[in-house]
């Protein structure tokens, strides 16, 4: 599978990657991976945020489509526009893989900057989410608003990946939900919010 972007900001807990195409990014809650060549490991992360911003922050874009019928018309009229923006996405690190072994904890080093970023296949998602040990990392690391959204989006995708070979979707979601209950002790409203988004 071809890479979709590269790392432009890196830390052990999270990194930012820029997409090669404007307005194109792996969906929220999807699993991506990048190498850490020094350690020889693959780092896994979940997309927590996607944004498209002007290359020059001092120049604010202006609306151009008064006479256009659609976005395609605008781009046809102003082909240079797409070159003035970039799309980047934030990734929360949820684990890594050394050799065959998948670890559901933080890697010793973050991915190098400019490291290539790949979107994981359904099989890779299934393998990674086989163990639910990543849940605490995802809950605590990316602690901002929207955690519930990201978590629920990832679990839905993981459930679909798990169910590819059978009818284990509901079973997987129940199992994940049960793991969340002790993690969200005393936060029953938050728990209910996440569970409601798993449907």
């Amino acid at each position, binding site marked *: 599978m071809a890479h979709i972007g590269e790392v432009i900001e890196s830390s052990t807990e999270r990194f930012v990657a820029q997409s090669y195409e404007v307005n194109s990014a792996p969906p929220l809650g999807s699993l991506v991976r990048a190498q850490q060549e020094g350690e020889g490991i693959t780092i896994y992360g979940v997309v927590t945020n996607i944004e498209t911003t002007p290359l020059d922050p001092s120049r604010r874009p202006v609306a151009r489509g008064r006479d256009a019928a659609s976005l395609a018309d605008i781009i046809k009229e102003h082909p240079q526009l797409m070159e003035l923006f970039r799309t980047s996405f934030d990734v929360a690190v949820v684990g890594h893989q050394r050799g065959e072994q998948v670890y559901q904890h933080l890697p010793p080093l973050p991915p190098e900057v400019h490291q290539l970023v790949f979107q994981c296949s359904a099989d890779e998602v299934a393998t990674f989410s086989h163990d639910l040990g990543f849940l605490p990392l995802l809950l605590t690391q990316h602690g901002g608003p929207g955690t519930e959204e990201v978590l629920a989006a990832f679990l839905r995708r993981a459930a679909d990946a798990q169910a590819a070979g059978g009818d284990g979707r509901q079973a997987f979601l*129940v199992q994940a*939900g049960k793991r969340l*209950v*002790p993690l969200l002790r*005393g936060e029953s409203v938050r728990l209910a919010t996440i*569970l409601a988004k798993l449907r």
Partner: protein
Amino acid sequence: MTSFDSNAQKLPWEEEASTDSEDRALGMVVDGSLSRGLDIKLDTDRSTEDVKVGQYITVQGEQARFYCLVSDILLKTTDTALTSMPPDMSDPLVAQVLRGTGTYGVVHVAPTLTQRVAGNTYEPVKTIPGHYAPAFRASKEEIEAIFGGEDAQHLWIGSPLDMEDTRIRLEIPKLIERSSGVFGKTGTGKTYLTRILMAGILQKRSAVQLIFDMHNEYGWRGTSEGQWGQVKGLKQLYGSQVAVFTLDEASSRARGVSTDGVVQIGYDELEPEDIADLRETLDLSEVQAQAVYVLEKNLGGRSHWFGAFIEKDAEGLKDLAAQTNLHGGALEALQRRLKYLTDRLGFLTPQANGGNAAGQILDYLQREKTVVLEFGKYKDNPLAQVLVANMLSRRIYDRWAGLVDRALGDKAQEPPQLIITLEEAHKFLNSRMAGQTIFGTIAREMRKYKVTLLVVDQRPSAIDPEVLSQIGTKVCCLLDDDNDIRAILSGASGANELRGVLARLESKQQALIFGHAVPMPVVVRTRDYGSPDSYKEFGFVEESEQRQQAERNRQELFGR
């Protein structure tokens, strides 16, 4: 990247419990104390409805296995918000997720017995398993190992809850060496259970029984509230091992009972103690009760006084009063009461036909024949019950004590172990009478003379606590009066846990058994009595089958 084939690899949440012990796994110990009992948190896939009060649970400790009785079942949540703001349980995902995690079941159990891993012996509980020891529903094998196998020493009484194919057995030597009791409010199956105990003891030939059959239930035929309506009595099942005596020949004949003897009591057989025992029932004053002993001295001794006294006219009484220094009025009142007695009780006659019935019954017992004494029309007559039961029992006491003393420890010379079955026991063993009547003495000290009681009663609280405390094995059907429950459980270990079990018994065919003859308390669904199969289990052989067997035997012996 590992290759991932979701078909080949079983996911942890898709794996099914396969082995038997996994099927029986319930949860793990999370809290508890030796005195209070253990709390077992149910596994997430177990519902509280999988467990019932009175069931057996085994907990596997490190050095021993603990056998426990479920005494309470609780609902818990990890978060108080879950109780005050219930989540949306209409969503199946939410319901499934919270079950066993945010909300979970706890089973409170009373540890009753331990089995050391080394040695395989059973001991009373002296310690408790550690945190997170796994708990299981007890298996058939475990239960049957505890309660003993099918042999001459064990009496099958029923099955534990929800384990119909498992048999609970009482240890007969322990059952008969101390008094036992069958309790329960009316209509809960006391008679049914008593009949099973009696038949079992007869079948195993472990003791001879004297049964005061106040309601004509045990001898030839009895009634049962189950589908069978009428059930066979002991005489039908065990023929020559059982003799039926009656106080009321007409009633027995009307019911089609063939009796071995009719009990008539001659005036000459009435001893002063027999009348003194009736003090409470006849409402005699202290003076009157004492007077009978004076009368015995003055009116010709033990075999003459009663007849002589009751025949006296007014003049004769006056002379007697002068002669004995007894108050004339008191004597008159006493005579009036004794005449009332002879009027009411038809089996009291100046001269008994067929000799001394009491002696005859004792001879039967000594020859190891079980005797059922039917009361016929006297079934609701406390005078008849108290008089006859006390008379016979006192004579048994005298004879058995004499025989045991004379045997000087030679087992062959000793009389057979005897069980006296006493229905409506509170009439004989209440606090006012237990001190005076022979039954109090038997309950307290006759164990060494090989006589014990089988007490059947619906108001255990009315029985003298001292007597109740001597009862070794207690079989309790449903009781719902607090006083009765307290009386039954006083002194029992784990009384608090048993209380909950006792109050929740079903009103039919269920009983809690605890005490001497069982290693640990047990709730049983009683075995069947009344169906043709059940009779076979009790060793009954139909006449046609007997004939066939005889024919087979003949052919085997002599050829065609």
